[in-house]
């Protein structure tokens, strides 16, 4: 049976469903741009929930002040995506993104002037800019060296309260560890996602709260792995705090983890209600730049889908998400075939030592763009005026070592959406604000 093709006509197609793709959609929605977002959910489930702007500039220095770090970056690495946007844009991008998340049910703290020092499941400390409100208590407790209890659960791998305590006790003497059995999950392996969903049930909360109360001792605050509910976690946490009588906070677990799944599920719920066409779990097969529109084709289990867009933001990420492909002979961009700047040969991809302070050259490979984040062709001009790129696919950055993944995603999406708006205005392509992007079926 040949299934009929579903067609969508939009002003902007965002390809990719990671942080950059979601951010681009948020910025586009807020500007009334008729948008479709397509693409595998990629690596968003791998986020800890922490939104890093910039955490490490030189090889040996974790940054306390990311804004000063950005100014230094502009001098030392002018090609870095974060050096190509203004500080005002970065602030606006974080504020707008965080406000949207908060309003949509996953509250975040606002971006401040300094990095906050956040806890990791290994008992190390990570500089980051914004944390979910459920994790703010950990930042505060660490800063105050509060009398604090860390709780873990038997069967939850990769999260040991004793490990957190062992590694922080020297500077945080009033830190203590307890292991509990999670209610209803007495045996076997535990999965944070399942624990989080079960904590949306009141009886489970009450039982867990009782077990925590039993081991509370003199603790003024209690840290837990990130399992406090999947939807509206701050409400789950508030209820647990009321039952226990102490403030709580979450510590990220090993990915894929609850904070990333929360974001993904929230976007999938909220975006359609805001007029965005979301086709989340499908990969775009082809992109064709026709004169009148950019044509994207893909297929899901109901048949083929065609999207006709005036502009496109490519936010397909790097290797893990499939935005870049590393093969025996070199690195390529598999969807459009954009040129990828990269080390001259495979020999140069990685340094000898894994933890080399300089990081690995392969991570700075990527797509080179103009100032509006339009990818450049091999000849040096924009590949197509209607095509933009955002997020980690961009060249000249090492988001891992720089602790700047969310910063690049948000800032480049912000600038790209701004440029999309200008492009639509120029071409007169924007077909009316607040217009819904419903699919038309060609019968």
């Amino acid at each position, binding site marked *: 049976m040949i299934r009929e093709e579903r067609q969508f006509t939009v002003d902007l197609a965002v390809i990719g469903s990671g942080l950059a793709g979601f951010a681009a959609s948020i910025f586009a929605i807020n500007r009334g741009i008729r948008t479709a977002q397509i693409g595998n959910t990629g690596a968003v489930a791998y986020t800890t929930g922490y939104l890093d702007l910039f955490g490490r500039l030189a090889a040996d220095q974790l940054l306390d002040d990311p804004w000063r770090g950005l100014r230094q970056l502009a001098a030392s690495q002018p090609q870095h995506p974060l050096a190509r946007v203004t500080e005002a844009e970065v602030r606006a991008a974080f504020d707008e993104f965080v406000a949207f998340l908060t309003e949509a049910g996953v509250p975040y703290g606002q971006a401040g002037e300094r990095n906050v020092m956040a806890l990791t499941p290994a008992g190390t400390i990570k500089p980051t800019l914004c944390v979910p409100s459920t994790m703010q208590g950990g930042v505060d407790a660490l800063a105050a060296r509060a009398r604090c209890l860390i709780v873990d659960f038997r069967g939850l791998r990769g999260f*040991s309260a004793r490990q957190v305590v062992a590694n922080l006790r020297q500077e945080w003497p009033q830190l203590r560890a307890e292991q509990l059995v999670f209610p209803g999950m007495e045996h076997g392996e535990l999965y944070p996602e399942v624990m989080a969903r079960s904590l949306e049930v009141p009886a489970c909360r009450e039982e867990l709260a009782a077990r925590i109360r039993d081991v509370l001792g003199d603790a003024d605050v209690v840290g837990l792995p990130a399992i406090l509910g999947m939807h509206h976690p701050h409400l789950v946490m508030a209820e647990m705090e009321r039952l226990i009588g102490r403030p709580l906070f979450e510590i990220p677990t090993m990915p894929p983890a609850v904070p990333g799944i929360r974001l993904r599920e929230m976007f999938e719920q909220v975006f359609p209600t805001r007029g965005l066409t979301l086709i989340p779990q499908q990969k775009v097969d082809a992109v064709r730049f026709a004169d009148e529109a950019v044509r994207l084709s893909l297929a899901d289990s109901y048949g083929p889908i065609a999207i006709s867009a005036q502009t496109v933001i490519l936010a397909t990420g790097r*290797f893990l998400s499939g935005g870049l492909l590393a093969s025996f002979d070199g690195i390529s961009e598999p969807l459009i075939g954009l040129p990828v700047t990269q080390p001259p040969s495979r020999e140069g991809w990685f340094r000898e030592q894994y933890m080399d302070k300089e990081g690995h050259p392969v991570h700075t490979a990527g797509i080179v763009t103009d100032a509006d984040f339009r990818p450049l062709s091999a000849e040096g001009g924009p590949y197509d005026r209607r095509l933009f790129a955002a997020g980690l696919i961009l060249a000249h950055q090492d988001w891992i070592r720089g602790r700047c993944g969310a910063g690049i995603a948000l800032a480049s999406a912000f600038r790209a959406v701004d440029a999309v708006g200008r492009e639509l205005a120029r071409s007169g392509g924007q077909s009316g604000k607040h217009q819904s992007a419903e699919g038309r079926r060609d019968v």
Partner: protein
Amino acid sequence: MMATLPPRSGPTRPTASLETEVLIIGGGATGAGIMRDLALRGIHSLLIDKKDLCAGASGGNHGLLHSGGRYVFSDPQSAIECREEGHILKRVLPQCIEQTGGLFVAVDGDDEGFAADFAGLCAAAGIACTPLLPAEARELEPALSERVVAAYQVPDATIDPFRLALENVNQARLVNGSIYRPHTEVVAFEKSGDVIVSALCRDNRSGETVRIVAQQFVNAGGAWAMDIARLAGCDDVRLLYSKGTLLVTHDRMIRRVINRLRPPADGDILVPGGTVSILGTTSLRTDALNAVQPTVDEINRNIREGMAMVPALAHARYIRAFSRVRPLLQAGGGADDRQATRGFALIDHHSQGIANLCTITGGKLTTYRLMAEKTADLVAARIGNTAPCRTAVDIVPDGEACRWTEPGAAPKLWYRAGDPDDTILCECEMVPQSAIDQIVRCAPGAEAEMTLEAIALRSRAGKGPCQGSFCGIRIASHLYDRGYYRDRTGLLHMRDFFNERFKGQRAVIWGQQMAQMELAEALHCGLLGLDCLDSPSETVTEGEAQS
């Protein structure tokens, strides 16, 4: 990690003293075999290694138990030894061996005269060899190339060198309390006249010096044997060093060992091993003994050559590559190291004026037991022990904590035990926490604190497609939970473990492995900050470096 210490710094004042009848230097297959052999003769020994078991060539080969076919052209004596030893090991060490069988195949363009002589040479060496039609060979091994023009079946097998060493050490421990001590490196010998009285050794983890007093000293240092002999003033050990690089595929691509039927060259042996296969090897003369790493060029050459036998190697997923230095006896002086003898030599150092040191070197994994027997014969004679060698007849018992290196053993035992609270820590290889607990409690070498590398060496943890990037974190957190780690040591061990695993990944990172690597680095560095453990920061405190 230990290679960063100056290799020949003088000993400090000994802080501990140990005594044994025989000190064996070098924890490869041969050293472990000597330990077992001596124990079965009632002789107590202490085995030391500057790193850990199989850190040299013993742990860096195909894991191939040669039928002997490989050597019928160049070294008929080695071929016969391989055949005889293969028979013995299949009987006494069955737990380490998979009787896969093997094929020798020539492809279109290979020297046909060479192929034609093969059966006759095998017969002369007593090696069972059955000619096959190319179509029959492809029926046995569908991955073989259409270009195969000649094929022979031989009784090759595969052998797990890590388990072999562990089982040998374990039996010696059980029989007479012989001791294995990892991370212990000889830095000087103390002599009196023509007798070595003791060896001064550095504990490479604590930095302390240990004096080991023994009646007899055995140098089983493999590629390092020449350096060790020189410490005793002996310059009659002459070795050539050949660097070999091998690759590990994600899948088991063949059932049998596949050898190229031509004079030995790059990428001409593909060996199945558990759930993977191992392709190799290149051969490169080198002077560097330490820190040898696979290069992209060696990887490319192995794959290019291997493709001729098994075309799927062109697009296989590779999860690891490794390089080791083989010690070759200096003889003849031919240009190709593969023509150098693969035989072994036992040197009694009599001509050097030393009465109680011997060196055993050269050889190959398949003949490790024979090498151990000859060495133990000499040592036993020197101390007046007349007990006969029993290693060819006594079965090696299954050591309780030695079985975890066998692919598939962990999930089988885990499933059989059926304990739902025994969670899996390494998902790629299905290693449960009970295996980790047992290894740190009683595996050979568990007397001292174990690193994650030491645990991985004694299990399958970290051997799968994620190469330890997830299970390293889970195992460390489990060990914190157990109270095994109580301070920053666990973080440092994690970092060192990932650094070590990376060395084997670096040259084969493309395709899916690149995605894997990106995720690993995001976790290890981006999230956990293991790249900044030593960085100055207002908020990250400095702990005591432990290693």
